[in-house]
């Protein structure tokens, strides 16, 4: 059985401009949404606060719950249904992060039981102090930056044998970032600037494959973050895990194509780079799509059946895998051509 014929030949490279505009549009919309929403909507892991997951023995109305919470002085809390409807599960969230000391869960249980006239089970309580949230936010940004950097060293080492050049570059970038982070610099700003400098250095040093990989990865991460922001979904620790997994996994397809490009460069060295890249993408199209499909199958089953806690994680993975497949075909490979145009003008 085959979905894609072996002799398939779609002219992808000539359509790279269309893809470029599509990507730019989605990225701009992502940034716009982030600006309108004043940054990502952080869950309590990153913003600090308290979350209580409750389960009722029979259906209740959110109004009843709210009145019960008002009575105990938690009027600013938000209530939201969680997971499957028939489970009667709800998440209660407040900004306050200090109230758990005085037996919060017991008081919530009593308040809700008297307001809703229904048996309540406290299933989960999470309290994160503001300091912890801020620390986690910083650590998450650093983790993503380091993952991007390490992976691009590996790519330029493996594909262009520029281990030393990219290694020295990455180590100096990391040490500068580390020392600046000790000073009182805004971490998101610092990481943003560091990423831009990384891109400029890749460009100047002509680390083509690393550049293609890191641009594709940033593209995937920005779009995933953007879609989360557009849908007003929360950023929690598992979402960061999903983003890092996307960084690692969505590169797989890129590597498949890059490998073939390198192979074909040796085989057809008389042809133009456009031809070689286009041929490589076509030759590997079948496996690029198949590998994504098998992973998508399990992630979708996780999304549908994995339960509320894992739901958003699976969603992020779905978005990441889809954009990852797209970007390996339409973003990463065309970037290899960027230097060519540059060279010709000179």
């Amino acid at each position: 059985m085959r979905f894609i014929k072996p002799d398939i030949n779609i002219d992808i490279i000539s359509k790279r401009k269309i893809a470029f505009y599509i990507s730019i549009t989605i990225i701009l919309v992502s940034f716009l949404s982030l600006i309108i929403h004043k940054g990502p909507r952080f869950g309590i892991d990153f913003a600090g606060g308290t979350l209580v997951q409750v389960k009722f023995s029979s259906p209740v109305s959110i109004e009843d719950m709210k009145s019960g919470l008002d009575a105990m002085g938690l009027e600013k809390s938000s209530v939201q249904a969680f997971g499957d409807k028939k489970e009667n599960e709800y998440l209660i969230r407040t900004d306050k992060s200090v109230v758990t000391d005085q037996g919060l869960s017991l008081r919530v249980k009593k308040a809700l039981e008297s307001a809703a006239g229904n048996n309540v089970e406290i299933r989960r309580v999470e309290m994160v102090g503001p300091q912890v949230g801020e620390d986690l936010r910083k650590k998450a940004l650093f983790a993503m930056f380091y993952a991007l950097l390490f992976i691009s060293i590996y790519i330029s080492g493996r594909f262009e044998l520029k281990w030393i050049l990219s290694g020295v570059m990455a180590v100096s970038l990391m040490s500068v970032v580390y020392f600046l982070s000790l000073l009182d610099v805004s971490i998101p700003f610092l990481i943003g600037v560091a990423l831009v400098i990384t891109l400029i250095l890749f460009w100047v040093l002509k680390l083509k494959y690393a550049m293609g990989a890191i641009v594709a990865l940033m593209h995937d991460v920005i779009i995933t973050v953007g879609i989360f922001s557009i849908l007003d979904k929360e950023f929690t620790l598992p979402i960061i895990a999903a983003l890092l997994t996307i960084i690692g996994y969505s590169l797989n397809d890129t590597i498949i194509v890059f490998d073939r490009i390198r192979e074909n460069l040796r085989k057809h060295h008389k042809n133009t780079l456009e031809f070689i890249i286009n041929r490589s993408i076509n030759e590997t199209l079948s496996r690029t799509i198949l590998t994504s499909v098998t992973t998508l199958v399990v992630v979708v089953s996780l999304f549908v059946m994995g339960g509320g806690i894992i739901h958003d994680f699976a969603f992020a993975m779905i978005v990441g895998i889809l954009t990852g497949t797209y970007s390996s075909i339409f973003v990463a490979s065309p970037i290899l051509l960027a230097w060519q145009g540059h060279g010709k003008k000179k």
Partner: protein
Amino acid sequence: MKNFSWKLIAVFTVIITAVIYILPTIKPDLWPHKKINLGLDLQGGMHLALEVDTEKAVESTIERIAQELRSLLKKEHIMHSGIDRVEGTRISLKLQDKKDNIDEFESLLNKEFKDLRMLSRSEDNGILTFVLDLPAEETGLIKKLATQQALETIRNRIDQFGVSEPDIRQQGERRILIQLPGIKDTKRAKDLIGKTALLEFKLLDEIHDLNIALKGNIPPGSEILYEVKEDPVTMRITKIPYLVKKRTLLTGAYLTDARVQIDSQYNEPYVSIDFDKKGAKLFAKITEENVKKRLAIVLDKKVYSAPVIQEKITGGAARITGNFTADEAHDLAIILRAGALPAPVNIIEERTVGPSLGSDSINKGLISMCIGGILVILFMVIYYKGSGLIANIALILNVILIAGGLAGFQATLTLPGIAGIILTIGMAVDANVLIFERIREEMNLGKTLRSAVDAGYSKATLTILDANVTTLIAALVLFQFGTGPIKGFAVTLSLGVIASMFTALILTRLVFDYFLINRKIKNLSI
């Protein structure tokens, strides 16, 4: 064929080792190795992060030094007009500017308080004011010891309370992470851990009027402390104020034992405490000097009782009463035996998962793993037929290897960890897809079966390695970043990536070789 059998042995060793490590999880009595650890999010329990307020430890050290200074100056008859702790960790000391006085004071300072640093010395209207504090190394040491000691004390309390397999460790300079699996009464556990348990005996100020003091006119040297009572039926809280002298006569530091006993008259539990020799002596002296006065028993700035001293008490025993429930008395005895925390601790992070949510999560995880797995298996068989079957065997072995790895490395399986396993089911067949596609491509070029399979493996190997290494890099960064559940995800993802490389590159190759070389098949179902 030598190479072939050598590989075969290696593969079987790996699989059998994995199975041996998994066995105790299925049947615990087979051999004594631990089961696969379940994270708190799967088995239920409480995760706490505490921050030790180490600044307070420095403050109380300074307070103690100020008190020592006061009594030494009194003993040496050095005239002073006030020794106070100011700005948290400084001592301000006022002396009459007379030469004898100053000389005596300075020689005392040099002899007894070598550690103190002189910050400033100013004269105003014949009064000389010194400001003293502790040097930075000294305060650094106090802070470091405070965290260590808090950790030991908390460990002691939890051990005595009896939680199976608690995990208590220091994080950073002043944080303590505590994991209590299976704990149900979370409020009680938090009370047990978070109480400073500073036990103090202080005299009531019976000269001044409490009502005047309540209006804000608190006499120097005294303070208002409250006794807090909660009515068990109405849940109403009443607060009774006391005017208590600031000076602490005796602390819980001299305790040797604390036990729960039942009052025979009221049938109420109370905590009886025993002092060591020095403490008993002090207690006898205090009670002797203050007969008919009221002595407040203060725990963490709350008054528990303030009985009138009837006579000198020599036995070195006292009792703490205060309308305790049996559990409260039991926990208080534990806390007093384990000792006070050197500084207060604040809970800065708490994550509690009830046992029912944990088992629900396991079930949902397993269901989505089965369904996702079955879909992938079906897909592979339909798309690649016989070869897909080989990939599926590899897939199942892959899950066994991950489980074996979890058990063997004593890693913890968390809910995101289950998601990681499910994810690697999808990723594990990727490697086989790459190989099979390459084999198909080589066959299209008209190669023989053997050389097509050979070429397929050798050309796909590097791609598979590269793709997996990048995922592994991300997983390792995640492991470094993550806490608890997320670490669990990084672990299963890494194990899955390694296992899938092993099964795809070595195991399925062996199966292909077996069919091509030993069975000499002519048609490959792919």
